[in-house]
């Protein structure tokens, strides 16, 4: 992010009084519903839920996947005990462990969307559209929820709006520039050229404001756009919220498809989880005084196989894990049911059984955090989901 100082002067020149004054009117007053903020983090590629939240009390755990299991809690480099059954967090998730103890983190294990096959794209399609099957939805559940919460501005980090945020409600995307940014003089001339073209003028002005709001993003811009550099993505998302540009932000992190050499206490998954954990630290710091009003949903399209595979990794599975973090979360809870890892308990004799519907988690957050009505949740946000009760008491 070059040019930060000059961008500031450009916005000043446009007659804005500081950041918020320069924002597009809709963005200047953007708030969460009643000052509540929702950050949705999608882990693309299917995060290994059993690798992140490990059930050490399951007798078969090491039979299924010994090479993927970190040392037990209490031992060197051991996992971080949660105090519920034998569940423990991966040793890389130090911040999340602290958040758990402060009751700012809850976990939904054995969770899945209604999708039951094993394609990433279709799985993400169902996760984001809120429809029962792939390609059946044209827009996303979060966008449909936003249609019921007028005044909440939404944004996504990335080159385009993800499906979950596409639809009739207004939403913008932001990505760091890969090419050099335009210089101030050119911007100023463009604004004059657009004086009689409201649409282009607004878009260009908002672009500069968004760029300011997202803040200085470190690292390779291409990697940030692709969601391969987690810290900057999460920090930019938090910046958009903290600066008042958006009340709801979606972020995508890729690289979770650990078919090969997944590792245990160290290795590929450990590295990804560590990056995620550090990003959450930055996120909390950035949110500052808004953290107590914030819910962060961390979710993924499906889980991975219970057994390790022949290339020291895991393959596409069904039941996975979702996290709720944030100051607004009524945390320290393992949510939903636990199907276990006994031989007969596995789904199709290979996956963690999908005992819990992710839509119940999303519905619970949307209802109790953003104030979307049960009727709207059942009918339009998640069509035909009347039989999926929102999880209670999440926030």
């Amino acid at each position, binding site marked *: 992010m070059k040019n930060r100082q000059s961008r500031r002067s450009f916005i000043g020149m446009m007659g804005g009084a500081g950041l918020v004054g320069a924002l597009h009117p809709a963005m200047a007053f953007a708030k969460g519903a009643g000052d509540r903020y929702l950050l949705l983090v999608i882990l693309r590629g299917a995060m290994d839920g059993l690798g992140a939240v490990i059930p050490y009390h399951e007798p078969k755990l090491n039979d299924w996947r010994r090479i993927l299991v970190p040392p037990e809690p209490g031992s060197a480099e051991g996992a971080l005990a949660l105090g519920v059954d034998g569940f423990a967090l991966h040793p890389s998730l130090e911040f999340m462990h602290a958040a758990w103890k402060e009751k700012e983190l809850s976990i939904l294990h054995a969770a899945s969307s209604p999708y039951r096959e094993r394609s990433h794209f279709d799985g993400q399609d169902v996760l984001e559209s809120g429809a029962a099957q792939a*390609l059946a939805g044209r827009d996303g559940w979060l966008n449909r929820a936003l249609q019921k919460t007028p005044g909440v501005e939404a944004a996504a980090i990335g*080159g385009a709006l993800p499906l979950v945020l596409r639809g009739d409600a207004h939403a913008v995307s932001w990505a760091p520039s890969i*090419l050099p940014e*335009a210089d101030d003089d050119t911007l100023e001339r463009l604004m004059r*050229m*657009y004086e009689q073209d409201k649409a282009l003028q607004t878009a260009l002005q908002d*672009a500069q404001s*968004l760029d300011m709001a997202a803040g200085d993003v470190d690292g390779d811009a291409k990697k940030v756009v692709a969601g391969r550099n987690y810290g900057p993505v999460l920090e930019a998302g938090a910046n958009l919220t903290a600066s008042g540009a958006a009340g709801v932000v979606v972020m995508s992190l890729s690289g979770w498809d650990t078919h*090969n050499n997944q590792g245990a206490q160290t290795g590929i998954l450990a590295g990804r989880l560590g990056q995620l954990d550090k990003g959450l630290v930055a996120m909390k710091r950035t949110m500052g005084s808004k953290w107590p009003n914030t819910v962060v949903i961390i979710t993924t399209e499906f889980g991975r196989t219970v057994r390790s595979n022949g290339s*020291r990794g895991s393959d596409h599975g069904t039941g996975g894990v979702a996290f709720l973090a944030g100051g607004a979360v009524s945390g320290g809870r393992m949510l939903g049911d636990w199907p276990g890892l006994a031989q007969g308990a596995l789904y199709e004799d290979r996956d963690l059984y999908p005992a819990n519907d992710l839509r119940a988690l999303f519905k619970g957050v949307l209802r109790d955090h953003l104030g979307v009505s049960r009727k709207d949740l059942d009918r339009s946000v998640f069509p035909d989901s009347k039989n999926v009760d929102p999880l209670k008491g999440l926030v």
Partner: protein
Amino acid sequence: MHSQKTMIATNRFGLGARPGEAAQAASDPQGWLQVQLESKNDSDFQATGLKPSDQAAREYFEYQAARRKEKKETSAKADGGNPPKPIMNSPRNTLAREIEARTRFAVTTSNPFRERLVRFWSNHFTVSTTRNPVVPVAGAFEREAIRPHVTASFFDMLLAAEMHCAMLLYLDNAQSVGPNSPGGKRRGRGLNENLAREILELHTVGVNGGYSQEDVTNFAKVLTGWTIAGPRDRNPTGKTYFDERRHEPGTQVVMGKSYPDLGGEQAVKVLKDLSTKPETARFVSTKLARHFISDEPPARAVEKLTRAYLDSAGNLGVVSAELVKLDEAWQEPAEKFKAPDEFYISALRGLGADSPQSRGLRGTYASLGQLPFSTPSPAGWPDEAQAWLGPDSIQKRLEWSQALANRVGRRFDPRQFVEEALGASAGERTRAMVNGADSRQQGMTLALMAPEFQRR
């Protein structure tokens, strides 16, 4: 100065004027368009080096088999290790060549109206590489199912598109099995409704076209059996064929009409009837009017196109000619905001380029927000300004424009660019800003970002 009417022909109907093109269109802009509709084929599209879909599909099967084998061998080794990269023609390379060829043709063609129609119909019948098996055949789909039909029969295009391996794979019909067919009874495989639903909702009568869920299910049964000869078949040709063993037996009722079981022909009969329905005529006409006139298509224009469609039994040459005759399509100022790929193509045409950039084409498309053949849903790319006028997309256009201007700036006079690419469509303000720029590079950036160049 080239008249507004001339520039509407080259920019709204065409893909953006190349230097000298406006001069050719000037004497009779409508006639210039009409001639393009009458050119009998698109033999000027160079498919040299591109693969027919069956060949691309067969290579894909081999590629997949090789990958599986490698994975197995890697698994067999205790130490794991990263799987070696397949050495064969990768599907992504096939796709990259298709995208480059299609881009090159759009930048250079002297039948740009015709090419715009190809892109319009290709988007109407979207196949997307978001599903892996579509990757190697997406480009071939456009060449085989769309190009030959853009000024001919809608029914022929419909049939070619729905029965193309890319579509059968994209919308799952290749795996759909009639529950009471021999294959369904033996393997317990089932019906997949994706293709049936999208044909009705997106390709023919439209979402308000008066069909029910039962129609979707019945139509899905009609379509069972149409699949592609893949690796599990005795002869994996990569071609579309009708597999009687997967076909749901029996008469099916679709939208109030009974279709006896004629095997594969049953689907052809339904498609034929769908192609001539008034709802289809109206749905398709509305989309055409939206593309060529305004995000909110004027009712009279839709009416006239619908009539032309019905009177000609869905002859797209006739419908396109009607489009050229519509007063509504020749109004200024231009209302259509260019989608990213329209912007990109028109910029290169305006500069008289004879090929796209050789490196980084994929990255350019992606950062502008519209990588060809990668639409996120079967609905295709949106055709409304709202979808493309977001702050970030404008920012990325600006950055790309500036980079292009810096590359070509010293060789091109932006004032000349404005004359050739915009002519009388360029307003006073834009001219003044371009003339007053402090360098050729800045002038070119402003010209590319001018409201009149961002719209058509």
